[in-house]
């Protein structure tokens, strides 16, 4: 299919455009979670790794298995750690922590 690459180029350019628009609205406050979140999303290379690891080809299976491991670390670790970070961002101090402080003082 000769038009395939052109079609994919359309997808690439439009996705880059959408990405730029969406990401330029992320405040500096959340730049670390942004990086770790996009990192988890780019773990989508897991999809390609799965195909390599699940193929007939022996060497491809081996390389694919390492790739699946690496990509899974990013997907699982990336989402978990981003959530851990986002849980910390609060507008008001956490009452539990604040209570502990005041308890310690009294």
């Amino acid at each position, binding site marked *: 299919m000769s038009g395939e*690459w052109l079609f*994919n180029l359309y*997808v*690439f350019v439009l*996705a880059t455009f*959408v*990405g*730029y628009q*969406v*990401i330029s609205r*992320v405040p*500096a*406050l*959340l*730049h*670390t*979670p942004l*990086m770790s*979140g*996009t*990192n988890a*999303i*780019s*773990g*989508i*290379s*897991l*999809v*390609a*790794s*799965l*195909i*390599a690891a*699940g193929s*007939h080809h022996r*060497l*491809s299976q081996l*390389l*694919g298995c*390492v*790739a*699946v491991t*690496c990509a*899974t*670390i*990013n997907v*699982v*670790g*990336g*989402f978990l*750690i*981003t959530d*851990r*970070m*986002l849980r*910390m*961002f*609060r*507008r*008001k101090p956490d009452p539990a922590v604040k209570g502990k402080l005041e308890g310690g003082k009294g």
Partner: protein
Amino acid sequence: MTPTAVVLGLAYLVAAVLFILCLRGLSGPQTARRGLVLGEVGMLIAVVATLLHREIVTYEWIAVGLLVGSTIGIAISATIPMTKMPERIALSHSFGGLATGLVGVAEYMREGESLPMFKLAALGFETFLGLLTFTGSIMAFGKLQGFISGAPITWKGQNVANIGLFFASLAAIGIVVVHPEARVVFFLIAAVGLALGVTAVLPIGGADMPVVISLLNSYAGLAACATGFALSSQILIISGALDGSSGLLLSMLMSKAMNRSFANVLFGAFGTALEPGAAGAPQLAKAYNEATVEDAGAVLKASQSVIFVPGYGMAVSQAQHAVRDLATALERRGVDVKYAIHPVAGRMPGHMNVLLAEANVPYDKLFDLDDINDDFARTDAVVVVGANDVVNPAAKKDPASPIYGMPVFNVEQSRSVLVLKRSMNPGFSGVENELFFAPNTMMVLGDAKKTLLAMLGELKEGAH
């Protein structure tokens, strides 16, 4: 199109939309967590759908990889301290790079010789960029972790050599496109990618890591895109493009916050201009006001408004909780407390924000450069916690300074400035900071965390 292929395609489309909504959620702290859940659902859909792919015939290697990867991923994310976030990000870029690089090699070995030219070129770029990101991120990790010197490591002709390597890889990709059977040349692409990752990141100094990490982020995204072109997988292209544009945007913001071009960061080897002891190197003989924690405490007691300016030193000494404790004590005395966060403070974009959030500082007390810079002139005391370049007035006044033109905080305009710093040593950037010698500056030398806690003790004593 088989029914399975249709299901697969639709599942990927749903996943792509969910990824975009996930990033959209990050436009505010209230919506961010909900957005993240959408991203997780998208990923689950994409992975489960892929297992239906007709090319997947065996599941044992997949199971091993998923199991081992999940275990490591959970272990890392549960145990890593927030101060180590830049290291974690660098490491995960290297995992991502390695995964794409290996997939590229595997794909070539499997069916490289029968692929059309365009896919071969994509495969070449995928392998090259993936492996470059892999070794480059390992170098960045090493610099952050300290097992490679954070100072720029330079050698003669490095820029020429690096540019040479880059063009060599382009040429090799060209040869593979025309002669797909030339396996040696394909492996040469992989080797050049690995080598260039090392030689391109070694010359970049530790303080430039926010730009480097962002750039590596965008390379990892581009590598995923290349994979998408090679496999004609739109979900890979879309996700890679999202990742790539995020990395690119962040590196542009970081460069702008240092008033430097990409080329300058990548090829400038910042910090080597000043040899120790050479003319223009810092002269430590100059007089400065060294203050005890008692003096510092007295200044805070006499203040009605205080701004904290954190830098990488706060992360190094893990002082974010001590900063918050001191700030809380000040607020109890009725003092107006704010935090000034520079875009390049720390070692990655948003580093300081995450640390202060961890210490339970409400985010509406954190202010960007533009929002707070006019407040310094009306502020009684500024506490600089391990920040240096971002408070250096030379960036505004001295055209000869290597950081001239970088937007910095006007801390010197406040009534008194307390600088918490380990020693008067200028650090590897070697840029002298005249703020430390200003008449209204007090240098409180020592570990930031200990100093802050001692100042807190002083403040509490005065309350009786």
